[in-house]
């Protein structure tokens, strides 16, 4: 008898088996009594009695745990009412039973003690044991027909035994249920942990084998073991494992020779590759990840075979617990096949992949196919389908029962449904009106609802690699173990190394866990509690931040979904936890979308008004938040935007309440309206609407909208203007400016580009073009040298303007300008004469006039700087001249701080007139004889003359204070200006009567202490406040922010407080 395997079962070369022969007599006896089933090896049956006895006797000596647990096992099993056992033990039974409740030596007592120990593994045994008992009883009852009389005691014992087991079972069930109910997962983890292999466990040996043969080999070994066991010659192996390691199987045994014997004759196993698995790797061997997943209804799957390979399909129903399913997909039918000869059809079937096309019974019928029927889909009662060539078609889709895993594969994250595919499902309903009864097509509906999720899925694919790498884990994250022996444990992520992470458990002090535990990345999941502030690090909602309001665990998925209330939009979005990261950051949105950026001035197409523009104050994932020119904030999609207007905004010039030119980048303070008192930078402007930006404001990204007329330019560059902004006059003015580009502005860039002569210093006498200008210096690019020099502003004289319309951006400049005026003006006339042929030059009449051209040209003595560029430059100059005479005096001389504006104004304008008029006269006659286009050129001149006249009328400019809300005296009555229109205004008297008066008719009410006043000049122009006290010429006022300002009293105008 070959007992080699059996003998080696015990570790450490334990005792050889009991000699069978010694039991023979007993077993024979038993066999005589009882017809033992042939499958039971009689040689082994007899041991019970002897064993029992020896067991009881030797128990004290059995100090090693191993043998004890052996006893336990044995006793547990023994406690089963096995007929043979009973027969054998009959004599001892009473004694046994008594001892069972008394002494420690008793095996039953040991059983009991075993259960009171913490050996949780054994806990399972009872229910299982009970099950086995039941089963075996049944089996034996069937198998054996014994004399009931012999069994009375047995039966009693059996009942008692069963009762005991049952009560124990209940207890433990209660305990376990309590554990589960408490969600005490870490205890469960510990439970599994207690099963870790120890030295007393059998060893695992690894064998190499052919890939894919693992399963088969394990079954083979199993079958071999069973066969040997039936012969009564058990192989000494305890298990064989085919886990998920490819080309490897493991055999577990106490002894190596047993393993060798077990694999003897097993083909496909490489015996020479035998290796023992170290103790700590044993659990790894037993680790598997679920690859196959049952499909669920309404899940997307991909076809795996045939022409349909790769096609998207929808699971309509699941059959046979997820092994099979009915899928719906777009058919690939080749209707031409049946018309071909069989051979060709065969080839074609194999080679040509028919395109996806919805099944249309009419088409099929039209082709003369007869085998078209309408019948129910088997197993789906109320679903009528077109049945054609063995396949069912519903609503154009193919319905088919397929095997999961082979025919279809779940549509995993690697290959999510694409937009295109989903649309193919969705479009079906739109295209086909014929199936109106099938309107509620599930596939279409599903596709529709999934289209929403799609971008999410797509986002995942693009970032899929990243997420598979580490699931978005970052050191410091709180994680939860989702797989393996410590499932449910929480810990803090200490380090990541490739695919393994080190975790420090949280709250496991009582478990005595020390240090860090290593896990595979796939075994842990980020754990984000409700209420955490998180940032989305990838996916569709990337870069959003918010507060987690809920966490939903997905059925059958490792990842959970968190619902986040976003900071920016206060919307709830669902994001996978792996895409989240706890963060205190508050997102401010993205930078760019569809080419538009934050703070872009955009034209809006949506909404009512045609000319709606707005500034982007937030760039979302798919939409912008825009504040439009009415200050209304709304969300628009990129498609609604019709381009940017940043550049035109950059060129635009508007006037503030005082008539100052304001441009993008200027700092203004708001003088009225809801934003009164605020100071901000002009970010964008559109017509008279300013989009102001203040860094101190958080709403709408600091942007707010104010009318330019409600603002006052602030800062040192303010030019106090005498004009209170007669709108009728200034609007065309500003338009002209805007059109003409840099003229003379606040920045003195009017000088830039001009030709100047340096009047003093090293470069005295040089001519050059002004390359740059500051309030004090100009940078002159010398014509004669390739050099730029910085010259004091006073030391340059503009010579490039031939019309005497020199601009004096600064009063400081005025002095220096006086000197060149006379020669300059003198030179103007010939210059203008020179200009005239230039017009001619621009026309076909050029030749006619060329004779006159040259002399006149050269007569302009300073034309050295116009080499060759006569026409262009002169034209430009001419352009400037069309408006310059009108505006520049108005701006400069009038706005200057001189006490008598008229005095500067009049001479200049008369100068202008005198210079201008003759020149015009000079031109016009010539024009009459020459070009037809010329009068066109002249038109602006008339306009300007008109403007000049207007300017002259303006001799009585409205005073600075002539503004709305200012208190005035009129004919001894006090009134308040209600509505200013140029120099006249509607005033309201105390008795609420109104009257239209002009500025000259009234006088300002001098402000007194505690009056509400408006600063009309100086650095704080535009400021409103309460006049606190007057100190000589200074006034102290308190602005709305409670700050005190000292202002010249003359700059103050009393106003009525804002209602």
């Amino acid at each position: 008898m070959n007992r080699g395997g059996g003998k080696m079962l015990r570790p450490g070369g334990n005792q050889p088996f009991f000699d069978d022969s010694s039991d023979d007599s007993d077993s024979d006896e038993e066999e005589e009594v009882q017809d033992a089933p042939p499958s039971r090896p009689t040689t082994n049956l007899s041991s019970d009695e002897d064993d029992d006895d020896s067991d009881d006797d030797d128990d004290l000596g059995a100090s090693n745990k191993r043998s004890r647990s052996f006893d336990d096992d044995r006793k547990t099993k023994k406690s089963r009412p096995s007929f043979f056992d009973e027969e054998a033990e009959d004599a001892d039974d009473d004694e046994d039973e008594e001892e069972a409740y008394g002494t420690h030596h008793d095996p039953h007592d040991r059983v009991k003690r075993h259960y009171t120990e913490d050996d949780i593994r054994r806990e399972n045994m009872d229910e299982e044991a009970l099950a086995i008992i039941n089963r075996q009883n049944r089996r034996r009852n069937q198998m054996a027909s014994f004399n009931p009389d012999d069994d009375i005691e047995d039966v009693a014992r059996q009942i008692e035994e069963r009762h005991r087991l049952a009560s124990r079972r209940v207890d433990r069930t209660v305990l376990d249920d309590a554990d589960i109910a408490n969600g005490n997962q870490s205890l469960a983890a510990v439970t599994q942990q207690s099963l870790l292999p120890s030295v007393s466990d059998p060893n695992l040996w690894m064998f190499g084998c052919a890939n894919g043969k693992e399963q088969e080999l394990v079954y083979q070994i199993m079958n071999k073991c069973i066969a040997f066991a039936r012969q009564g010659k058990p192989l000494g192996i305890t298990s064989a494992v085919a886990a998920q390691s490819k080309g490897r199987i493991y055999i577990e045994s106490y002894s190596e020779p047993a393993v060798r014997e077990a694999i003897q004759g097993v083909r496909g196993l490489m015996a020479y590759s035998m290796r023992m698995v170290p103790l700590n790797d044993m659990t790894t061997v037993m680790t598997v990840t679920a690859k196959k997943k049952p499909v669920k209804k309404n899940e997307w799957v991909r076809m795996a075979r045939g022409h349909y390979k790769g096609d998207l399909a929808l699971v309509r129903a699941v059959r046979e617990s997820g092994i099979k399913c009915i899928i719906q997909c777009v058919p690939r039918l080749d209707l031409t096949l049946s018309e071909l000869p069989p051979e060709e059809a065969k080839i074609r079937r194999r080679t040509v992949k028919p395109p996806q096309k919805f099944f249309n019974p009419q088409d099929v019928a039209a082709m003369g196919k007869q085998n078209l029927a309408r019948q129910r889909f088997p197993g789906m009662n109320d679903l009528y389908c077109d049945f054609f060539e063995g396949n069912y078609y519903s609503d154009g889709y193919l319905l088919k029962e397929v095997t999961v895993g082979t025919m279809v594969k779940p549509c995993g994250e690697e290959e999510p449904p694409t937009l295109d595919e989903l649309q193919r499902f969705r479009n079906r309903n739109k295209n086909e009106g014929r199936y109106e009864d099938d309107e509620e097509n599930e596939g279409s509906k599903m596709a529709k609802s999934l289209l929403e999720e799609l971008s999410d899925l797509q986002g995942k694919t693009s970032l899929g690699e990243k997420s598979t790498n580490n699931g978005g884990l970052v050191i410091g994250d709180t994680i939860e173990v989702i797989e393996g022996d410590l499932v449910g444990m929480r810990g803090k992520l200490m380090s990541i190394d490739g695919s393994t992470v080190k975790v420090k458990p949280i709250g496991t002090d009582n478990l005595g866990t020390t240090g860090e535990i290593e896990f595979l990345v796939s075994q842990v999941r980020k754990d984000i509690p409700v209420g955490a502030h998180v940032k989305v690090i990838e996916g569709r909602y990337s870069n959003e931040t918010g507060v987690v309001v809920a966490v939903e665990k997905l059925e059958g998925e490792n990842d959970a979904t968190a619902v986040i209330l976003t900071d920016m939009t206060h919307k709830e979005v669902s994001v996978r936890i792996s895409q989240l990261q706890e963060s205190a950051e508050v997102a401010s949105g993205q930078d760019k979308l569809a080419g538009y950026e934050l703070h872009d001035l955009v034209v809006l197409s949506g909404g009512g008004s045609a000319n709606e523009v707005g500034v982007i104050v937030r760039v979302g994932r798919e939409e912008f938040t825009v504040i439009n020119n009415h200050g209304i904030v709304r969300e628009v999609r990129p498609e609604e935007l019709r381009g940017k207007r940043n550049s035109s905004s950059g060129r635009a010039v508007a006037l503030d309440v005082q008539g100052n030119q304001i441009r993008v980048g200027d700092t203004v303070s708001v003088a009225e309206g809801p934003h009164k008192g605020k100071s901000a930078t002009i970010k964008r402007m559109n017509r008279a609407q300013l989009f102001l930006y203040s860094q101190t404001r958080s709403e709408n990204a600091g942007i707010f909208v104010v009318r330019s007329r409600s603002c006052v330019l602030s800062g040192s560059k303010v030019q106090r203007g005498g004009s209170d902004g007669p709108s009728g006059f200034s609007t065309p003015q500003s338009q002209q400016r805007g059109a003409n580009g840099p003229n003379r502005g606040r920045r003195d860039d009017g000088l830039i580009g001009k030709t100047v002569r340096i009047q003093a210093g090293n470069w005295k006498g040089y001519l050059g073009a002004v390359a740059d200008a500051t309030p004090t210096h100009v940078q002159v690019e010398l014509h004669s040298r390739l050099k730029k020099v910085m010259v004091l502003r006073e030391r340059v004289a503009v010579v490039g303007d031939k019309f005497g319309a020199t601009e004096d951006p600064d009063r400081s400049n005025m002095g220096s300008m006086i000197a060149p005026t006379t020669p300059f003006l003198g030179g103007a006339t010939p210059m203008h004469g020179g200009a005239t042929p230039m017009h001619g030059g621009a026309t076909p009449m050029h030749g006619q006039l060329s004779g006159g051209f040259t002399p006149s040209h050269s007569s302009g003595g300073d034309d050295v700087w116009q080499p060759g560029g006569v026409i262009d430059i002169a034209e430009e100059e001419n352009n400037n001249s069309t408006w310059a005479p009108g505006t520049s005096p108005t701006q400069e001389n009038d706005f200057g701080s001189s006490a008598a504006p008229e005095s500067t104004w009049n001479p200049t304008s008369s100068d202008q007139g005198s210079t201008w008029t003759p020149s015009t006269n000079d031109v016009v006659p010539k024009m009459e004889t020459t070009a037809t286009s010329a009068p066109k050129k002249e038109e602006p001149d008339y306009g300007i003359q008109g403007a000049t006249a207007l300017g002259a009328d303006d001799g009585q400019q409205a005073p600075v204070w002539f503004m709305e809300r200012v208190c005035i005296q009129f004919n001894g009555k006090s009134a308040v200006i209600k509505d200013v229109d140029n120099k006249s205004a509607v005033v309201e008297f105390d008795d609420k009567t109104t009257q239209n008066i002009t500025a000259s008719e009234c006088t300002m009410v001098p402000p007194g202490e505690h009056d509400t006043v408006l600063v009309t000049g100086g650095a704080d122009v535009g400021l409103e406040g309460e006049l606190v006290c007057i100190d000589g010429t200074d006034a102290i006022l308190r602005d709305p922010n409670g700050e005190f300002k000292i202002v010249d009293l003359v700059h103050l105008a009393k106003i009525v407080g804002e209602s």
Partner: protein
Amino acid sequence: MSAYMDEEDVGDEEERVPQQVAELARASAPTNMKGIRACKRCGILKTLDQFIDDGCENCPFLDMADNPDRCNLCTTAFFEGQVAVMDPRESWTAKWLRVDAYLPGVYAISVTGTMDKEIEEELESRGCRYRCRPAGS
């Protein structure tokens, strides 16, 4: 002492082997490579036909024998890993999979899926615990 031990061990072996060998002798391995199902409760692997013919030896109360519908409900094709357990009492793998109290047989390492609500209740009312073991446990 050592003599005692020897004696005991000898007896132990003798007693154990018949029991376990007998169980092993009665055990059944899947008869086919295809159509293998795992009992959702104990995780034993057999073909569907075997389940229908014999039921599950560990879970007779599931009453699968001669009841194909029941077999479909209580077994699943979604499992990972196979362990042929010849000696559940001794085997560490059996212990690890918590099938050490079951009969010899081929067991799945992990079983996916959940019990039917109905069966779940039934099992609970019987006081039987079941586990559709998650992967890796």
